[in-house]
């Protein structure tokens, strides 16, 4: 369970930082009569939707951290046999990186109100994300064809489970991206579109980060990395 605890420690860090700005040491009963002077208006300046997405991404991060924890705990048992990583995953990783880059471009363009670039970026992001999903399915097919079935070894089970869970999140993201793209074509209000694009980009970058982390995990580099850390500590 150490992975999830480390993850929660990071969350606790954010929470602690935020709490430290809430003046928890003040004596509220002495601060009466004022709305604005020594009781500053302390909401975040970020749009509410971004805060909401941020909280949601913390939950998603928690989910994958828990899968990782379970992965390491199950891996320590004797029947674990690592499976070969399909080479296709590298191509898929490339696709997801492209997708993220395209959305970042769209987001920058939305800030400059260059509608054509926005549309191009959104479409490119959508297509590469779909290519990523198709690639993932092909990787699954290849593995199954080579005899690495879901139930034959826990390493296989985790591979299908974690990639599947990540894929589902991409599918969910595609719904949001689809709505944003439709808005871009149908002339949504520019500020609104800009916010939507930025939200999509934020979600995409996060899922790219998650993918890189679980790729490292499934390929076995994460375990090696942790072993090295452990040796350095002892």
């Amino acid at each position, binding site marked *: *369970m150490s992975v*999830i*605890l480390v993850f*929660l420690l990071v*969350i*606790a860090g954010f*929470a602690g930082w935020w*709490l430290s700005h*809430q*003046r*928890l*040491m*003040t*004596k*509220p*009963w*002495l*601060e*009466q*009569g*004022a*709305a*604005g*002077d*020594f*009781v*500053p*208006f*302390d*909401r*975040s300046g970020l749009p*509410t*939707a971004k*805060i*909401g997405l941020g*909280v*949601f991404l*913390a*939950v998603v991060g*928690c*989910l994958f951290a*828990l*899968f990782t924890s*379970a992965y390491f*705990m*199950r891996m320590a*048992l*004797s*029947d*674990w046999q690592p499976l070969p990583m399909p080479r296709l995953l590298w191509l898929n990783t490339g696709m997801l990186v492209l997708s993220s880059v395209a959305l970042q471009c769209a987001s920058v363009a939305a800030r400059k109100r260059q509608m054509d670039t926005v549309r191009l970026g959104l479409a490119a992001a959508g297509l590469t994300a779909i290519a990523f999903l198709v690639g993932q399915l092909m990787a699954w097919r290849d593995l199954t064809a080579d005899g690495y079935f*879901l*139930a034959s070894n*826990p390493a296989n*089970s985790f591979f299908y*489970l974690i990639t599947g*869970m990540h894929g589902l999140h991409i599918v969910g993201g595609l719904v949001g991206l689809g709505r944003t793209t439709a808005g871009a074509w149908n002339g949504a209000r520019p500020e609104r579109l800009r916010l939507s694009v930025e939200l999509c980009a934020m979600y995409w970058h996060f899922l790219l980060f998650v993918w890189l982390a679980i790729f490292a995990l499934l390929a076995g580099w994460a375990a090696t990395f942790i072993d090295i850390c452990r040796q350095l500590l002892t």
Partner: protein
Amino acid sequence: MVDVTPADAVPPAEVAEMELYHPHSWWTKYVFSQDAKVIAIQYSGTATAIGLVALVLSWLMRLQLGFPGTFDFITPEAYYQFITMHGMIMVIYLLTALFLGGFGNYLIPLMVGARDMVFPYVNMLSYWIYLLAVLVLVSSFFAPGGPTGAGWTLYPPQAIMTGTPGGQEWGIILMLVSLILFIIGFTMGGLNYVVTVLQARTRGMTMMRLPLTVWGIFTATVMALLAFPALFVACVMMLLDRALGTSFFMPAVVEMGEQLQHNGGSPILFQHLFWFFGHPEVYIVALPAFGIVSDLISTHARKNIFGYRMMVWAIVGIGALSFVVWAHHMYVSGMHPYFGFFFATTTLIIAIPTAIKVYNWVLTLWRGDIHLTIPMLFAMAFIVTFVNGGLTGLFLGNVVVDVPLSDTMFVVAHFHMVMGVAPILVIFGAIYHWYPKVTGRMLNETLGRFHFWVTFLGAYLIFFPMHYIGLMGVPRRYAEMTDVTVMTESAHHLNSFISIMAFIVGFAQIVFLFNLIWSIRHGREAGGNPWRATTLEWQTPQTPPAHGNFGKELPIVYRWAYDYSVPGAKEDFIPQNMPGTFGPSREPA
């Protein structure tokens, strides 16, 4: 002393009147509503309905335990289905849903001075997915083989094997699917509660001016958002083990003389994931109760809550600590014994902030002006049962004391007292307190007092003696205790007594439901602020509050939530949105 800053120096409210969603038809107003207050009532109604099912199940269990052998239709198989569904419904579908979905939705926007939740559409979806989860759960009663009888902890391997009711049939699958749906639905609601508190507080409503109710629900929601994924992961993995033959949790096992295909999995892994959710869950239920009871005591004792800052710190501290105590549910699970040292220490440390909260509640009563209204009575009953249940927690949290007591009736008595009876007493108190705001009328006083006395004394008489049956060594989850030699003849009589009390207490809840319905039309008119309370929900222009809560302008907050009996003020309460300074306010600016 203090100048109120001109309004233009302050950013405008987040949701202006114009931007608010307006329903256009009866359907969108009352059924597919995006108004948090309607959603709150939907959540509460559904939770109460499914809670009644759980109440009936508890009667059936007590029939069997109190009068073994008398009721042939309660087979061991049925008994295990009853305990499983009772436990799961009460913990997840009633308490979590009612505190966060019900009270959270109703009170957060009103108490922080917002017009609604920040994402009303997602909030509506949250309820409908919750309803779907409940329906899937109920459907398992009608599935072949009936609901699962694996115990609410759903421990593998038995949860998915033939020796357990529903293990190789539909029961366990429907249970897991229902939980997964619940978690998805809850996450949607939870995002709303958290972000509303973060972003939609009205002008002047700093975190340290929030009522403790909001602090409790807010912290509990943050915890739930981080803890429920653990249950989600456990459910998904168990579903794969059951449906597709993977071996996440399933080791090599022999089922009724037959080798199964599973190999090498770890049942302990499930327990870690389950309790990583399961322990914070206790506080997810308890923290809103802590918050609400603080407000009830303060309002009805006409005194500010004693040590507000300490109360806030304690809530945050308990919330954080509760993530590092989960394995105290697993002292005798066969995990590495050295974990016991760590988890016993963290568990007993968490008793300190919890004790501080108890002291501050009773110290609020000290030199108060205590009105013995029904909410106040329930709040005091909460303190009695919570202290009782919390103290027996010190037995079970202390690793070596847990060895003889774990998995006995002592545990059953403990957790019913501390997370069953105590929070439910707060729920009752809260309903008597806020019902006038929701409906505009008071609940009937006579019926209410009858309900209080029967529920409080009855519940105490059920669960206090039960500890001693556990102390004798009688294990929990026994459909029949007749063969247990340590169970003496007199203890069987005690068991019958407990069952009779359970029926009486259950009956009182029917009276309560009648009161809820009857008083909608026949209750005494309440007016806008019957308890003369300070918090914003009592200052709305209409009662019940209209859509948008606060009429044309959002309130501006000038003080904390607990200005009761301030020296120098004429009334013994000052609403949060009343300007001006009173009493001993001498903060050097």
